[in-house]
Each structure stands twice: as C-alpha cells, then as structure tokens.
C-alpha cells in the first residue's frame, strides 16, 4: 500500500484537476479541501503519538487571520504563506511547551481551551478583528505577479496542490525517520523512550510545532480562497471537523487527510443541497457508518480494495 501511495496521490490529483477544470465552483471547494487536508496532516502527526488535539482549529484561524491582517501591508501570497507558517509555528512552540507536558484528555482539552480563548479574543478584540463580521481578504499578487480573479484562483489552487505534494512528501519522510518512529513510540511506550535517552516531550513538541505550521498553512490557503475570515474558523466544532476528516480519511498514509477532506467537503455540499436543514445529521451518520463499518477510513477501504486486486 505504501508503495502505491504516490501513484494514488497522482490519481487523486488528476481527478481533482479534472474536476476543477470542468466546474469552477468545484475548484473553490477542492482548494478548501486541499487546505484542510494539509491541516489535517498535522492532526495525523499527533494521532501518531496517540494524542488527539481538539483545538487545532486555533492554528487554522491563526494562519487565516495572519493573511487577513497582513495582506494590506505585505500583500503577496508567497510571503503571507511563509509568515502564516512561521507565525503558527511560533505560536505552536509557545503553546506546545505547555501542552506537551500533558497526555490524553488533558492534552485534548488544553488544546480545546487554547482555541476557545483564541476564539473569544477574536470576538472580544472587536476593533481590530471586526468580531463575527470578519475581515475581507482582497485578491493579492502572487510572487510579485498581479493577477485577475480567475488566474488568481487557479494559482491558489495550484499552490495548494503543490504544497500538498511537497508537504505530504516531507511528512512521509519524517514519519519513517527515527524522529517520526519515535513519535509513534510515544503512543505505545513513552517511558521506554526515556530509558533510551530520547526526550519524549521534545519529540512530541517537534511534531506539535510541525502540526501547528501545517495548520497555519492550511488556514492561510483557506483565507486566500474564501477571501473572508471569521472567528468561526477557531470554534471547537471546527476542531472537531479536523479530527473528523482525519478519521474519515484514515490514519494510514499522508494521502488519507486529502481523501478525507475531499470526501468531507463533497458530502457536506451534497447533504446541504439535498437536506438543507439536516446536513449535520447526514454528516454525523456518514461518520458513524465509517467508524463502525469501515475502520481505517477511506484509506483503509482503498487498501482493502488494492489487496483484493492483488490476490
């Protein structure tokens, strides 16, 4: 399965590009899906260590608001992506130094608490953030090029896709490196790591900072795509949504988050269009069915299909 993952990734990318070419509104939806997929890789990293962050929407919102605040001043998508990643990483470092001391429920709930504090700040600091009205993000130049709207949207889609590949590739390397394998060791036998001379907390902190950066990048892309940011991005249900996507996609490979994000967005649109006042129920039911009858998520299903083929 691992070997064919790059092949599957190319297949998925091709499908996404085809969809984006044929339907402009899908281009928008898929850009959002790619952005969320990037953020969900961060959730995946922490899940490798057996930890569930129920507050990672914080970093998405941070990345998004970084773009919204700085776009008028440093209005270039490339610069802003970098700033969002670095800024989220620094925030992740500060918060991570605290939360990585905790495990399981404490870890999850402290992350939740941090995101809710951030959410409250976005509402409270009304004069800077415009509260729930949110901040508009104008079309910005990309790498110095001023673009019209359609070209801009294509570029952001392309950047999201490119980043998904590059980051997916890097994270894949990381996960099979000693550092990544030690991260998985935190889940099963954290004390042993200490007795091997490995600082488990440091390993987790590194992953946490990476996951924060991935969240920041995802959030920046979301802001550049939806071009309007609101505090809702950091509400606890948005964090739940990220974990939802991670499990829907399956925790097997780095492709999982993207499968999950694309499926999530499309199911939500389908549910919202067909049953506008019961879309939550549909999403919840889909999630339940996947957990109960397709453990391993979409990635697991794909793996089973592949195995069936191979035999």
């Amino acid at each position, binding site marked *: 399965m691992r070997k064919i993952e790059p092949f599957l990734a190319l297949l998925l990318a091709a499908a996404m590009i085809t969809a984006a070419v*044929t*339907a*402009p*509104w*899908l281009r*928008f*939806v898929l850009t*959002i899906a790619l952005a969320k997929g990037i953020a969900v890789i961060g959730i995946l990293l922490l899940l490798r260590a057996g930890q569930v962050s129920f507050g990672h929407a914080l970093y998405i919102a941070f990345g998004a608001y970084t773009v919204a605040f700085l776009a008028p001043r440093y209005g270039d998508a490339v610069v802003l992506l970098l700033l969002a990643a670095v800024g989220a990483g620094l925030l992740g470092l500060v918060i991570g130094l605290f939360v990585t001391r905790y495990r399981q429920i404490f870890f999850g709930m402290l992350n939740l608490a941090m995101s809710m504090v951030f959410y*409250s700040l976005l*509402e*409270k600091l*009304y004069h800077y953030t*415009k*509260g*729930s*009205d*949110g901040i*508009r993000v104008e079309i910005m130049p990309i790498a110095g090029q001023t673009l019209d*709207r359609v070209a801009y949207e294509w570029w952001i889609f392309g950047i999201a896709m490119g980043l998904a590949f590059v980051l997916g590739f890097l994270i894949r390397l990381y996960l099979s490196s000693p550092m990544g394998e030690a991260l998985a060791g935190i889940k099963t036998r954290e004390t042993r790591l200490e007795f091997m001379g490995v600082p488990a907390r440091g390993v987790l902190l590194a992953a946490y900072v990476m996951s924060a950066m991935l969240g920041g990048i995802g959030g920046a892309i*979301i802001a550049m*795509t*939806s*071009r*309007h*940011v*609101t505090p*809702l*991005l950091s509400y606890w249900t*948005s964090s739940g949504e990220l974990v939802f996507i991670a499990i829907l996609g399956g925790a097997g490979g780095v492709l999982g988050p993207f499968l999950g994000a694309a499926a999530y*967005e*499309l199911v*939500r*649109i*389908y549910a*919202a*269009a*067909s*049953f*506008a*006042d019961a*879309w*939550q129920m549909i999403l919840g039911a889909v999630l339940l069915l996947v957990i109960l009858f397709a453990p391993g998520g979409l990635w697991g299903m794909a793996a089973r299909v592949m195995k069936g083929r191979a035999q």
Partner: protein
Amino acid sequence: MTAPFSRRDALAAGFGAVLLPSTLSAQPAQKPAEFKIGVTTFLSGPASVFGVPSRKACEMLVDQINASGGIAGVPIRASFVDEAPGTDHLVGEFRRLVQSEGVHAMFQSISSGSCLACTPLSAELQKLTILWDCGTQRIFEENRWQYAFRTQGYGTPEVLAPLLYLLKHKPDFRTIAVINQDYAWGRDSWELWKTGMDAMKPGVRVVAEMFPRFGSTDFSTEITRLLALRPDVILSTSWGGELVTFIRQAAERRLHERSLMVLPVAEASMPTLGRSMPEGHIIGTRGDHWNNHPSPANPALFNGLVNSYRQRFNEWPIYPVHHMAQAMWALKAGVEKAVAAKGGGWPSDLEMANAFRGLSFPTPTSTITLREDGQGLEDQIVGLSSFNDRFPFAVPKDMIQFPGEQVSAPVGQKSTDWLKTLKPDFIASAGARIG
C-alpha cells in the same frame, strides 16, 4: 417539497459532468423556463429562530407568486443554503448555486459576516444579489457594488430610531447601561448608539458595558449588577433566545421597575414571551412591519401576508418574514421593470441589476426605495410595549414612525461620521406619531 429531487439530480450531474459552460452571463439572455433563486439563511444554530421563518415565508411567497403567473411570466424556484457551517462553506455554496445550478438571483443572508463574505461574489460572478436581512452598515459604506442591493433598512436607522424615541420619551435620563450579545451586531449597534447619543445628548454616563458570550443562557449575574447600578436606561440589541431569557430573568426580578429598557430587536421575541413581557418599554422591529401597524399603506396586502402565514404555519409572522417578503417583492418589481425596459425581451444579468438602482417597490406598509448606492430606505416604527385584546403578546403603542431617509446616513457618508453631526434639535424634528 418536490424541489430536492430535481436539485439532487442537478447535483449528481454536478459531480460527474457539471460541465456546463460557466459563461451564462455573457451569452444573449433567453427567457428561462424557471427563475431560480438561491437563498442563504440560518437553518441551524441559534439564529435559525429567524432563518426558519424566513424560509417558510419564502416558500409561501414562491407558491403565491407562481400561482399568479410568476415573475414576468416565469415561475420561481428557490434553493436554500444554511449559513451556520461558516464562511468557507457558504462561499462555496454561493459559487455552486451561481456557477453550477445557474440561479438568476441570490438572496443573502442573515448574518452580517455572511453578507460581507458573499457580497463581493456578486461582483465577481456578476449576479444579481439581494441582501434580504443582514444589517451591517459596512457593506455599502465601505464599497460600491453594481449587483448588490439591500431591500430593507440597516443597523444605523434601526438603532437611531429607538434612540430618538428614547430622547423624546424620556429626555431627562442621565445614566445608561448596555447588555448586548458579544458579536459584531452587539458591538456595532452599541457604537452607533453611543455615537448618536453623545452627539444629541452629551453627558450621559455609561455605567456598565456588558457583552455576555453569544448564546448565553444565564444572565442572572448581569441582572444583579444592573439591579445594583440602577441605571435610568438599559439598552439591549439582543435577539432570539437570549433576549427571551434576559427578559424573563430580568422581569422576574423586577429590573423593569428600576430601569427603562430599550430593545430595538424586540419584536421577534414577543410571541414567545407572551404576557411575560413588561409593559411600557421601548421596542423596535427593524422596520415598520408591526403586526398592529395602525395604518398600513396597503391593508389588503398586509392582512393577506399576515393571515396566510398564520394559516399555513400556525404562528405569527415576525420581522424576517417581512424582510423576505420585501426581497421577493423587490425582485418581482425589479425584474419586471427590466423586462419592460427590454420591450418584453429577457434582460441580461447586468440589465437586470441596473433595473434595481433607484427602484421603488410597494410593501404592505409603505414604499421602499433602493438608493443609488443599493441601500433600501425602510421606515422605522418604534413604540412602547403594551397589551391589547387582539394579540396574545406585547405590541407597541404610542408609536412614532421615522421615515427611512431621515434616519439613514446619506449616500457616501459613514454612519459614525454622520451620527456625530446630529444636533440636539434633530430630536424634536424627527419622526411623527402614528396611530
């Protein structure tokens, strides 16, 4: 409810082969078989108290209009989108409706955040967009929009009218406290109020500014503090469940005996509160469409709307119902104007939008004019809560009507700048008693 089927079919096509050219607006427009509108409104979460009635009203009006021949002979079909999941979802849905389902006009939204996010799309996708309920002044004060129009009033008149009423009704008040929901409307409305109040009656002391968390279910601490402070006036622009909760808890503890309450968005909560609403407090309705409007311009139309809504849904219409109706009537008036201008031919998106600029359309109670910036001028009626035999809930008495033009910031001026220019003598000249 036959719509979902065809929508689902369209969607199924959407995933596989939505491969219609997206350049509908560039082609010579043909008279469509049906006039599709996409409506964004809250169908879940706390604001669905407004969203669901508006959806019901929309469905009812679509049926009524179609029964009488549709718009310019074309039947309407509405699709609904929930605002609750957040901006990224909403923006995606807006695009899907325009680019994939080919709607002819968008109706959006309740939340100001949604409106701010979606209005720019009207320009990008060049699609007629009617802002049917949101109140933020930022939309038309910070930008010019070619395709977007608001068919009702907005925050500034909706706050200024109750303020003027207060200044007329109780000119000698010296202290005020505010308790608003902690989100944009709660903050904005306070800023507008304070700016106007400081201009027309300088020296009022603000003894407490409280913005409890959006969605709070317990205000007992805030109420205790208000009881202890005894401000002359308490302003709250809260709505929905929170306003009901606040008034219930406050009334039980007789806060209304110590302070005069000003509740600009009270109307929608009155049916729920029933007889537990205290009498003699200032209430508003974001417009002039009170169920006990003493002299509606078109009584038959007014009663028709109220009665058919009551019959069909077994509840009293609240202001979002009227706002939806205004949007619908504006749509009918505007499109038919555009068709007439084209001599019966079908107008392009741009021609359609242009027909709305300066459009005057009748509402049951009055007439609304869409200014050149796209903002509608809706009259405001404010009064004191009271009970009579006709309604099982509080309705206003001693009503004062403020013409929309009088209480809205002029085109091109920011509300806060304009409010600063108001003089104390404006109080006496503004508004007129009705009923």
